């Protein structure tokens, strides 16, 4: 028998068929939480905490495999705010990586390839996250960004396409140019125009 807790309160859940997975349990609970504009935001299984459990294979496992499941919920607003914070921080990390990568490319550094992958993968994730946050916010009628981020998608994807072309043709000058003079100003612009001032 698995003990299930939501926000430190024990939840009665009957796994009659012995086939309930973690994912299914979360789905059922979130259905109930939705009307309160809350979502599950953290998961602990037998004392082990999982950050990105929604994409982890652990979510496919049966709950009966565990003795104790602890779930924590949060309001949509809080989840969104945290998501926006992560996004903003990640954009700043990308900016730092752009500088490192440009220096590496122009001065012949050794770690250029790794930095480029980090930037390209990072920006792809950022676009996906911006889109999800923006769509989620719309659903709950929350103003997540100061403006619709989709206006930037094309420019970002165009930059990433040029980065790919530059890498394929081993044109490092073009690569550094795109990163320094196109992607970097774009990221700076996104940071400036998309996010609300936290002090206000």
């Amino acid at each position, binding site marked *: 028998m698995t003990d299930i807790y939501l926000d430190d309160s024990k939840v009665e859940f009957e796994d009659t068929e012995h086939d309930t997975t973690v994912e299914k349990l979360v789905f059922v609970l979130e259905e109930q939480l939705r009307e309160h504009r809350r979502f599950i935001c953290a998961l602990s299984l037998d004392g082990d905490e999982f950050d990105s459990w929604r994409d982890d294979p652990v979510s496919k496992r049966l709950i009966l495999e565990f003795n104790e499941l602890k779930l924590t919920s949060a309001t949509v607003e809080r989840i969104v705010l945290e998501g926006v914070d992560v996004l903003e921080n990640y954009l700043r990390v990308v900016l730092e990586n752009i500088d490192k990568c440009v220096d590496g490319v122009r001065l012949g550094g050794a770690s250029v390839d790794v930095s480029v992958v980090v930037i390209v993968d990072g920006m792809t994730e950022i676009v996906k996250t911006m889109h999800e946050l923006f769509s989620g916010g719309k659903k709950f009628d929350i103003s997540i960004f100061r403006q619709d981020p989709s206006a930037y998608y094309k420019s970002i994807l165009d930059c990433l396409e040029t980065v790919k072309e530059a890498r394929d043709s081993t044109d*490092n*000058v073009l690569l550094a*140019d795109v990163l320094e003079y196109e992607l970097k100003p774009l990221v700076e612009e996104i940071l400036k125009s998309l996010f609300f001032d936290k002090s206000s």
Partner: protein
Amino acid sequence: MSDSENMGQAGCASGILERNISALEKKSAELAGDLREYEGADVELLRARNGLYTFKYDGRFFHSSYDPLKEATGQVDDILVKKPDWVVLFGLGCGYHIKLFIEKGHEKLIVFEPKMDILHSVLSAVDLSEELSGGSVFLFNDTLSATHCIRDYVDGMDSLLSYQPGPYRTTFQKEFSDFTNKVQNAYTTTQVAIKTNIDSRLPWIENYLENFNYFPETPSIDVLRGRFKGKPMVVVGAGPSLNKNGHLLKEIKGKAVIIAAITAYKPLLRLGVVPDFVIGGERIDMPEYFTNSDTDKEVHLILAEVASPKLFERKMKSKFTFFNAFSNLSTEQAQMWGCRYFASIGGSVTTSALDMGIMFGCDPVIFVGQDLAFGDGETHVSGGVYEGQQLTIDSKNGTGRIDWDYADGRTGRVDYTILWLKGLNGSPVASKFDWVTFHQWFETYMHYMKKEDMSQKVINATEGGAYIDGMEHISLEEAIKRHVHEDIYIDTVIESAVSARIPVDFKALGKSLVQMRDGLVYIRKQAVKIFKEVEKIRASFKLLGLTPELVKNVKKIEALEKSLFDMTRKTPFLWEALTAYTHQLKEQLREEVSESQEEQFKVDVETIEKTYTEVGEMTKKLLPLFDSAINMVESRVVEPKSLQQSEPVR
């Protein structure tokens, strides 16, 4: 606006090109000529967002299309942090780097642009005439000239940093690899040359003076000038490949002039070939190179004027001397000995032999055993003094080791840094610094022959080792088939040539020697004075420490040094004799300055003391040799009978 910011301003293309070419003419005349005659396609120069030039080559940008100047500034700053004495730049690009280096006060630059179309386009659009006029800024389009420049201008003690912008490295990989190897090889040989110069200079002078006893009876090799016109000559080196084809030389005895490097003499005899000439320049006696039998008496020996006197004593058929232009003693006195020829010296006797063959009028000159590279586990042909050498090459770490265990019981070991040369089949072959120097010399010589339109053919019939650009590469069998047919009466030619020898001018020799001896006496006196000053300083320092008065005393030494150097500069031989000591001082100046003023003072005083003690010893050693040479020469002058004996029998 700074100069580099002005780049990309429109100007009259032909005017800019002409200005650039004029600036190049003095230091890169060949390139200047090529640029004037260039009729090929140009590269399209594009404008970056800030209006400056950039271009694309093979689909890649070579400069930023936004701000090329900012991009180049970062790169130049990154290089200058490393404080190199010289920067070797692979790729001119649009000239941003060259301008920035000079703007930032770094003026020792060797720039190599591998592509003529880039060079022509850029020099037509960007005015670099001011930069290219700088005394130590060089621009080349061929690796040979660039490597010459390194050998001629880069002091072996200077640090050299090679830089190549990314697009150049990516786009011109083959040229880059070739260039890097050659630059590395040239730099290494420059460093080695300093060492050889220092180690050998004094023994050379001593040998030269001792050889005064033999020179009167040893004609200069240029008595044979033009005497073998159109006849084939074979120059035999002691490379491992001689084992493969050396036996073929038996067939051509008496039909070609065979000249063997001293190291190849015994291996040749083993193959059944007695060469006509053996050429050597060893500064120490090497009896093991000879048979010490009647066979030696069938061979003419050609010796450098600085070779060991013991070699001049050997019993051979006859002996000849060749003079070197690198020795100031020789350049001053060769003519007095009746010599009108300085052999072009490439560091090896086979390089000198090529120059002599050309001077003799030989055509073709055929090389065998000139591998200039290690063989399969061997360094030399078998049958020679190096037979006991064992070679181990560690290609991964780029090192080689030679262990030897000679028949006479001598053993030893030496480690090398492996340098790579292009092999006969195009693949790299492992070599070492001295062979690389010879290789560079051969390629330069061939380049010169081509440029001067010289009709004599040079064939490399070596069947292993390095490819020598400019020579024809065929097998020895094929070379013999094509070029060796008629009999040559070598001894008759030699006899006739020697009988026409130019007489020795003993009077002029005597005058020259006395002047040099007086200079040495002056150096000795100055050295003694300096030494005494140093002793005073040392005593005072011990007593009172470093006082301002003591520092002033050092000025006295500086004044003595100045007058010594002023005097020696006027006499090239004396300056040359001081080479090792000036080098020692220079090396010390380059060392880190000690944090403590007292410590530094002590180091300076010790260096000065050591240097001038050695200078004094050098004069002590040389003066008796000068006296003896002067006596010999004077005896020839006052005894007309002896003088006549050294005169040719006409």
